[in-house]
């Protein structure tokens, strides 16, 4: 039985439908990320799971039982907010103990539990400090300890990394992942950052404008996006609008591309990720192109390549290798090519929100 299930979940605010019939399941012990641009409804879904918002329609089941009427304090969840929100009038230790305190747990037991968790997040020595003295990353770790102290098996994270410096965010995201695996927790992590979602999750749910667009294991969704939007939102993609010219072939701007399989329509949208395009390999399928710009990104370099009218971005770890104006050959391997039918309107797929 899934740990969490939503059935046709809807939330309307006056004139806006923020969540539009969302269905998904989360298994026991799974780490699931819900990812999408701001305004896509992901936070609203999470808040409905927590009981902080009431669904307009639809059902939410925890362990098979509906929780729709249940108040947040009765759902036994741990919740992390984007802006950490530690209680400023309580010390770090008292913050962590709060959940146990409101359950009237015995003093002796509270102390040991909170120490255990502060040790887990490596902040035991700050127990007597007030939140205002801690950095953002530290405060969020205290918030994590606080959420776990009640012993709940379900952790809901509402963009917990967004307010942190990049380094702190990356460190914290791995810590959350490791702690939750170690404790066997079920985690639902809402984020607008696709890299965060890809790196930590067992399953990723991509949302847009209130709907679930695709869900599945990160690698699957990344390599087999169901729409140009997903191909664009996760990682990056080059898009080519092409006309089919054969069994497994299409043409755009005078260049022929081999396709991985029979195309779904007469006109297709081809997509290929910048890291998959191959430069200067001696293969008859390569075509000629010119380097328009070079952008060093550190762990990789991005080349803006132009072939006839087509403008493509290509990434490779070889730096200092090509210069602006150089002639190159480029190949787009069919196995890495994503093909979409003309049912998709490319400009709408790529527009924000």
């Amino acid at each position, binding site marked *: 039985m899934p740990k969490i299930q939503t059935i046709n979940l809807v939330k309307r605010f006056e004139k806006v439908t923020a969540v539009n019939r969302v269905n998904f399941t989360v298994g026991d012990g799974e780490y699931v990320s819900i990812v999408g641009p701001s305004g896509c409804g992901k936070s609203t879904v999470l808040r409905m799971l927590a009981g902080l918002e009431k669904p307009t329609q639809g059902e939410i089941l925890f362990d098979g039982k509906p929780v729709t009427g249940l*108040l*947040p304090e009765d759902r036994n*969840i741990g*919740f992390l907010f984007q802006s950490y*929100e530690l209680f400023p*009038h309580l010390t770090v230790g008292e913050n962590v103990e*709060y*959940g146990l305190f*409101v359950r009237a747990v015995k003093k002796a037991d509270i102390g040991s539990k909170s120490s255990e968790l502060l040790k887990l997040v490596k902040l035991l020595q700050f127990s007597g400090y007030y939140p205002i003295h801690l950095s953002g990353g530290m405060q969020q770790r205290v918030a994590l300890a606080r*959420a776990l102290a009640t012993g709940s098996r379900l952790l809901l994270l509402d963009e917990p990394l967004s307010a942190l410096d990049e380094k702190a965010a990356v460190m914290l995201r791995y810590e959350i992942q490791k702690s939750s695996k170690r404790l066997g927790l079920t985690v639902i992590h809402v984020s607008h950052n696709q890299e965060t979602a890809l790196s930590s999750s067992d399953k990723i749910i991509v949302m847009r404008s209130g709907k679930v667009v695709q869900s599945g294991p990160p690698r699957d969704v990344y390599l087999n996006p169901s729409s140009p939007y997903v191909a664009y939102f996760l990682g990056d993609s080059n898009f080519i609008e092409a006309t089919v010219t054969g069994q497994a072939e299409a043409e755009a701007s005078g260049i022929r591309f081999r396709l991985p399989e029979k195309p779904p329509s007469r006109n297709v949208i081809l997509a290929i990720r910048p890291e998959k395009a191959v430069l200067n390999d001696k293969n008859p399928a390569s075509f000629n192109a010119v380097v328009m710009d070079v952008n060093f990104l550190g762990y990789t370099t991005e080349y803006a390549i132009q072939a006839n009218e087509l403008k493509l971005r290509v990434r490779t770890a070889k730096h200092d290798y090509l210069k602006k104006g150089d002639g190159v050959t480029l190949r787009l391997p069919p196995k890495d090519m994503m093909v979409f039918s003309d049912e998709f309107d490319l400009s709408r797929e790529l527009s924000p929100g």
Partner: protein
Amino acid sequence: MAFGFSSKLLYGFVILFFLFIVFFPPVYILSYIFGGDFSLSSDSLGAVVNSFKIALTVVALDVLFALPLSWILARKKFRHRLLVDTLVDMPLVVPTSILGISVYMFWGGEWAASLFGPSVHLFSKGYWMIILLHVVFTFPYLVRSIQAGLLQVSRIHEEAARTLGASALTMYRTISLPLVKKSVISGCILAFTRSLSETGATMMVAGVVKTAPVIVVEYKNAGSVSDAAAVSIVLILAAAALLVIARFASIKTRVPLFHVYPGTEKFLSARFIGVRDAGVFFFVAGFILLPTAFIVLANIGVVNASAFTALIHNGLILKGVVISFFVAAIATIVNLVFAIPMGVIISKNKFRLGHVFDTLNDVILLVPTSALGLSLALFWGNFEVNELLVLVLAHISFSFPFMVRPVSAALTGVNEELVEAARTLGATPYKSFKTITFPLIKPAIIAGVIMTFMRSLSETGATMSVSRNIKTITVVLVELFEGGQVGEEAILACILLFALSFIFLVMIKRSHGEE
């Protein structure tokens, strides 16, 4: 960063004005400690004790009902919220003498007799009626204060508490309340000093009970200046001591969390809500709104042509109105001019004196106005200055904080970055004040002007202490009431003033809404 009005001369002038006109008068009377016979008769002491007992009871009652009401107004969305919000502020703008008559009519009222039998009064003049009266015009201070504090408390703190297992009641008392501690205390201080200070309406409902401000006026009119001064001094010192203790308490103490009884608190959160809301509604309607509006509700028939004619021919009342408006207008205009630079000094902490002046402004608030009026009369009496001028100075003095507070709060609220942005776009300090800061504080200035005007209009104690001869409308009303001669014209005048207050209140709410 250098900002606005770089003229040091201007600020110097404003500071001098403040010290001389606004701050010095309340302080002058303290010097009487060192002169002559400073003694406190037992009557005087009794009056002071009465005042404190009343004020403390009033504040306690206020807090009890303000806590749930401010929560409802700050957090709950219900249909007539704006209306309730506006109504709760009514007693702040309506002159207290009118409130006095209204409250007396409601609680002491013959209407109760007509319902329940001829010998039934709900309350008669005296201790408890004073308390009921004071609750009416102090309650809004607490509600506003706590509500403003709650609006600042991040909802996310409260949501976090809920997700951690706290029921609504537990959350409110362990998280929200401790975080608005400062607002609760400042609201209590405002309410307390207002109660301590009120004279005119108290006279109407006190019967034989004497409160300190009332006895100051009596002594002064009887010529016992030193007795009057003694009482005033004791009032000021005791109130100051309380203020210091309260300030200290708000910084140093931590609200202890006590123990949680999850089951009970949960029950109270769920089942009790209806009872709580009903209780609050009943209190507000029955103890605040009805007593306030009763004078209008019960006498609506007075609004007729013949009463109007009588009113226009009533020289006493007309003269009172003219004097009141004249004094209030001058006080408001003068204060407006000086409050803006003072607001700048406080909010921008100019010359590092911001906190000093903020505190001094608060000190003025806690000086009972009768004492203030007395002080000024004594000081200027030495130079035989025209009584009307002294009266105007007195009004300028006690109403100054009512103008400065909203202005400095608004200035603090203006995001500094907006001014910085204007500067980087080429605006000089003056230009940035004119195009950015000033438009953004306009609603606060409007509110300040209205509050100052109405506060001046409302004042009786200071007026009575300054002069026996110059009678503002509120003094006229008090005297008519005491003489049992409140006729149709007087009631009509009250109703008209009441209507004016309501219009002003709506104007304030409107201009805030536009922000």
